[in-house]
């Protein structure tokens, strides 16, 4: 069953087009991530799903019902906000009860719901406190509790973790994922953090300039990004974009890479699909972890300009085809700046882009 379907939704303010025809379909129980840089329209889309803004065109379906003209409160949704939006003059219990109260839930049932939610999120001891007396993480928890109390068909999370410090953010991220596993409710989650997107989502919609750049599973988006923007946005450190000529050497299609005086020819796998581009300029996308140390002395001899040890890995910076390239190596394999390492790209995972259209080739 479709939990949420967005069909050709547009939004404009005067001549400014915020959303330019969005199509999304989410099945019941799925975790959808809307990710993109600020101003890409993801929050507007979220508000349209919630009913807080109305679309200029298109349809929004929740649980197979068109909700364009349905008020936010009647859409059977609950939302967690970035600023938590807890009512400051009410204590936690009243905050959770408010939504039940306006819906006319009897007092006894309210107490049961509050007890259930408090138990689920382990916040029994916070019920009588005001939001001002809670830490950031506790407020986050209460905001989620308020949403859970409603038992909605659809949860909306609007950048819920961006006001937390780094450690807490990781903890809450795990907690949200566990919650989703337990409840199996459909979740739409807006974030600008690509790590949150990768770790939480069943499906990711990468947005930019009011257009969905790619819609797919995290692994699809990571392995076969639709265009340069998606490739650069997802993954940290970013994918290396190496400009190169596509050439054919002895029937094998590949690219030539050059670093300082050294050069090598990197053949592409399954290369006939690139035949149309032979002799043309392309952009080769190689992720930092897709570089291996060529122990046999082959590969490309690269001079290291800089290293960034992260603990489990060391990122080494070098220059290939005139641009800076980052490679993620085991600390044991890394060398200090100034020395030379023989690196070999894993061309089976490399992706090629057309430099004009910025779209993936093949």
């Amino acid at each position, binding site marked *: 069953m479709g939990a949420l379907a967005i069909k050709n939704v547009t939004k404009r303010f005067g001549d400014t087009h915020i959303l330019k025809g969005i199509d999304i379909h989410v099945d019941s129980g799925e975790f959808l991530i809307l990710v993109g840089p600020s101003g890409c329209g993801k929050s507007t889309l979220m508000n349209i799903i919630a009913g807080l803004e109305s679309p200029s065109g298109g349809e929004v379906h929740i649980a197979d019902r068109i909700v364009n003209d349905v008020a936010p409160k009647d859409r059977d949704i609950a939302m967690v906000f970035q600023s938590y939006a807890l009512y400051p*003059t009410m204590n936690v219990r009243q905050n959770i009860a*408010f939504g039940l109260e*306006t819906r006319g839930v009897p007092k006894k049932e309210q107490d049961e719901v509050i007890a259930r939610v408090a138990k689920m999120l382990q916040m029994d001891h916070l019920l009588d406190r005001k939001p001002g007396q809670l830490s950031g993480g506790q407020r986050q928890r209460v905001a989620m509790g308020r949403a859970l109390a409603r038992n909605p068909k659809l949860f909306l999370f609007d950048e819920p973790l961006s006001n937390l410090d780094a450690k807490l953010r990781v903890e809450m991220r795990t907690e949200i994922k566990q919650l989703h596993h337990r409840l199996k409710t459909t979740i739409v989650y807006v974030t600008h953090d690509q790590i949150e997107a990768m770790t939480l989502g069943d499906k990711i919609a990468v947005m930019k300039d009011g257009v969905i750049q790619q819609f797919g599973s995290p692994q699809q988006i990571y392995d076969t990004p639709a265009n340069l923007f998606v490739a650069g946005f997802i993954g940290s450190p970013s994918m290396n974009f190496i400009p190169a000529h596509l050439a054919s050497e002895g029937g094998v299609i590949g690219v030539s890479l050059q670093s300082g005086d050294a050069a090598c020819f990197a053949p592409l796998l399954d290369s006939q699909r690139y035949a149309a581009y032979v002799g043309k300029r392309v952009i080769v996308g190689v992720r930092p972890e897709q570089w291996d140390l060529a122990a046999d002395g082959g590969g490309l001899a690269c001079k290291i300009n800089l290293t960034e040890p992260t603990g489990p890995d060391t990122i080494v910076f070098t220059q290939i085809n005139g641009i800076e390239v980052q490679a993620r190596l085991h600390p044991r394999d890394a060398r200090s700046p100034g020395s030379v390492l023989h690196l070999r790209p894993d061309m089976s995972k490399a992706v090629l882009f057309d430099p004009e259209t910025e779209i993936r080739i093949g």
Partner: protein
Amino acid sequence: MSKPWRGVLYAVLLIAALYYLLPLYVMLSTSLKTMDEIRAGNLLSLPGAISFDAWHKAWGTACTGIECSGLSGYFWNSVRMVIPAVLISTALGALNGYVLSKWRFRGSELAFAMLLFGLYIPFQVLLLPMAQTLGWFGLARSMAGLVFVHVVCGIAGTTLFFRNFYVGIPDELIKAARLDGAGFWRIFLRIVLPMSLPILMVTLIWQFTQIWNDFLFGLVFSSGESQPITVGLNNLANTSTSVKEYNVNMAAALIAALPTIAVYVLAGKYFVRGLAAGAVKG
């Protein structure tokens, strides 16, 4: 700050405080003296024997024109005027501010700009048109008319106070309440209004002071049994008999000023706090 400088600072503050308290002291001591003592002694001396005769007279028997029943009637007129006028103008200001900050509509910024313009219109300009309007409404020379004038003239200021305060309340709070199923009124009464205590105090004190101390509208738009205390005080001080009774005049002035002084003493800390809150957020 070093010790000697702190001393200088306190000295300056003390002198400033004395300077501003001196008139109050003169009024208070004069009001407690007898006429003989006023004629004999100097302005700054303490009263020899404390006498409340002047206060009794100012309250109950002093002449304000041909009538000689003191300020008591005027005082209760002012109370009857100020309470509804303050409450209504504050309530309307809160509602306006809520709409102009959280329920914006096409043209709401223009409406706000026009309201602000109302702050800059000198009240003298309003006298004739307002008199005409009150006549049409059948409210001329009545207490209800005077309340109406104060409400209308107060709305611009109260709206500005509340609107600027509410701009600082995050919109997400309103969105959350809408998703919780609350409508316009429930959000206002349950979420927004309970957060408004600081600005509510500022507005109540401000409006109370403005309306209680108003002389112009009281003089122009009221008569006889509906005149406020400011007009009564003026009449009392201007009713000339053979001797000028300074002690009675001072007691009358203090009676007229007492409510505003009391409000500042009781609620002054909210006033400062509310103004500061507005300053940070607005």
